[in-house]
C-alpha cells in the first residue's frame, strides 16, 4: 500500500511537470494551430541559462526568474522572427521550421555549454517527508513543483477569463479575422501566446532539471511526455493539459514502479497511440471533427 501511495505521489509531481510542458504546446496550438516541436529545445536553453546564472551568482532564485523571463522573450522572438512567416501557410512548413529550430537550438547549446550534461539544483530539498518509519517519495521540492504548476495554471486561467487582454487573446485564437475587425491587434496576441507558452515550458525545465540533468538532449523525453499529455487533454484546452499531464504522470509512475522503468517511454507512446485511436480529439477538446 505504501508503495502505491509513493508511486501516486511521484506520479502527481511528475505529472505536474508534464502538465506545464503540455501547456506550452496547448497555448501555441490554440493561438497559431502549430505544434511547436522546438518546445523541448526552448526549455532546454532556458534551463541552461538558469544553470549559468545560478553558478555565477550563487542565487537559485535569480536563475529561476531569469530563466522564466528569457523563456518569455524567446517565445515572443521565435514567433515574430520565424513563425510569423509560416503562419496560415501549409502546416508542413511550420512543422519543418519548428523541427529545424529544435536541431539548431540543440547544436547551439552544445557549442556554448558543451554536450556533457551537468547537474541542476532543486529549489528545495528533494528528500521525502517522513511519516513514522516510512520516507515518502515526495519531498518539499515535489510540493513546490505541484504548487508552482498549479499557480502558473491559475494565473493563466485568470488572465484568459477575467482580463481584457485575455479576452482579446481568446478571440484571436478562435476567430482571427473577426478579432481584427473588432480592432484587436491579432499579431501581438499571437506573439504573447507564444511568449506565455514558452514561459510555461521554462518552468517545466526548471522543475525537471534536477531529475534529468541539463544537456542539449536531456529534455527530449519530457518534451515527448508533455506532447502526449497535451494530446490526451485535447491539444486546445489548458484544463485538458493539466488533467492530461496528471493522468500521464500517474500512468508512467505506475508503469515504472510495477513493470519496469525501462518501458516508461514506450508506455507514453502507447498512451499517445491509444488516445489517437479511441478519442482523437482528446478528453477535453472542443474541436469539431473535420470530415474530408
Amino acid at each position: 500500500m505504501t508503495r502505491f501511495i509513493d508511486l501516486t505521489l511521484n506520479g502527481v509531481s511528475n505529472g505536474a511537470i508534464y502538465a506545464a510542458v503540455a501547456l506550452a504546446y496547448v497555448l501555441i496550438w490554440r493561438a497559431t494551430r502549430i505544434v511547436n516541436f522546438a518546445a523541448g529545445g526552448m526549455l532546454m536553453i532556458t534551463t541552461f541559462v538558469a544553470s549559468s546564472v545560478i553558478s555565477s551568482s550563487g542565487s537559485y532564485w535569480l536563475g529561476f526568474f531569469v530563466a522564466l523571463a528569457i523563456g518569455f522573450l524567446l517565445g515572443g522572438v521565435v514567433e515574430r522572427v520565424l513563425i510569423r512567416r509560416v503562419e496560415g501557410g501549409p502546416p508542413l512548413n511550420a512543422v519543418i521550421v519548428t523541427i529545424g529550430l529544435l536541431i539548431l537550438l540543440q547544436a547551439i547549446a552544445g557549442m556554448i555549454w558543451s554536450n556533457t550534461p551537468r547537474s541542476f539544483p532543486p529549489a528545495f530539498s528533494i528528500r521525502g517527508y517522513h511519516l513514522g518509519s516510512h520516507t515518502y517519495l515526495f519531498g518539499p521540492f515535489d510540493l513546490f513543483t505541484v504548487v508552482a504548476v498549479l499557480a502558473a495554471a491559475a494565473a493563466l486561467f485568470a488572465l484568459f477569463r477575467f482580463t481584457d487582454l485575455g479576452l482579446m487573446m481568446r478571440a484571436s485564437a478562435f476567430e482571427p479575422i473577426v478579432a481584427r475587425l473588432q480592432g484587436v491587434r491579432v499579431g501581438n496576441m499571437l506573439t504573447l501566446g507564444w511568449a506565455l507558452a514558452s514561459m510555461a515550458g521554462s518552468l517545466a525545465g526548471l522543475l525537471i532539471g534536477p531529475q534529468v540533468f541539463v544537456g542539449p538532449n536531456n529534455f527530449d523525453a519530457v518534451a515527448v511526455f508533455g506532447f502526449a499529455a497535451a494530446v490526451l487533454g485535447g491539444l486546445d484546452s489548458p484544463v485538458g493539459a493539466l488533467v492530461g499531464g496528471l493522468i500521464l504522470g500517474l500512468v508512467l509512475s505506475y508503469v515504472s514502479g510495477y513493470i519496469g522503468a525501462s518501458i516508461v517511454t514506450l508506455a507514453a507512446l502507447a498512451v499517445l497511440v491509444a488516445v489517437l485511436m479511441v478519442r482523437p480529439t482528446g478528453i477535453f477538446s472542443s474541436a469539431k471533427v473535420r470530415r474530408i
Partner: protein
Amino acid sequence: MLEIEDLVAAYGPVRAVDGVSLSVPAGSITAVLGANGAGKSSLLRAVSGVVRPRSGRVRFCDEDITRAKAEDIVRRGLAHVPEGGGVIAELTVEENLRLGSLWRRDRSDRSKALKEVFALFPRLEEHRRLDASSLSGGERQMLSIGRALMGRPKMLLLDEPSLGLAPLVAARIMELIADLRQKSELTVLLVEQNAKSALRVADRGVVLGVGRVVAENDSHKLAADDQLRQAYLGF
C-alpha cells in the same frame, strides 16, 4: 463619407472586385445588390482591410484607407459586420459585445456603450452570460450589429444581415438598420442578396454583376426598372 475609386481585389488570378467605383454620402443607406458571386462580400472585405486591394483607392472621411489594416480601419469609425455576423461562438454574449470596444481607451464610455446596446437589444441582456452559440440566427445578427455599435462607429458595412433568417426576423433587422440611421446618424453600406427588402430601407442602390457596377440609382428607380430586376435582382 466613403469613396471607392476603381477598386480591384483578387484571390489569386480571380478578380472578385474588378474596378468598382461608388460613393456613399454621409447619413445615407446605400445598398449593394447582386447575385451570389457578384463580388459584394469581396468589396466589403477590400474596404475594411480584411483583403488587401490590388489597386484603386478607398477614402473614408477624406482620408486614404486603401492600404490600412483592418484593426486600424475600425479605429477610424468604419465597422464591418461580416457575412453570418462573425459571432464568436466560444465566447459569451457579453464577451462578444465587450470585444467590440476594447480598442477604446475610455473605460467608462465602454460600459456606457454596453448599457446602450443592452437597451437596444433586451434579449442580449437576458442572455449575457450564455455562450453566443446558444443564440438563434436573428439574435446572433443582433449581437454582431450590437458589437459593431460598441465601438461607436460613424459608418457600418453590413454583409447580408438577413441571410438565413425567417422573413419576419429579416424585416425586423431591416427596420433596425433604418432606425439606427435615424437615431444614431449612422451611415450604412448594406450588402444584400434580397434586393427587395434592401431597397425598401436604402436611399440608393448599386448593382454588381461579376465584379463590376452595372447600375447605380435611387432605390425607387432601381426597383421600378423591370429589365434590371429580372436580369440581376430576381424579383
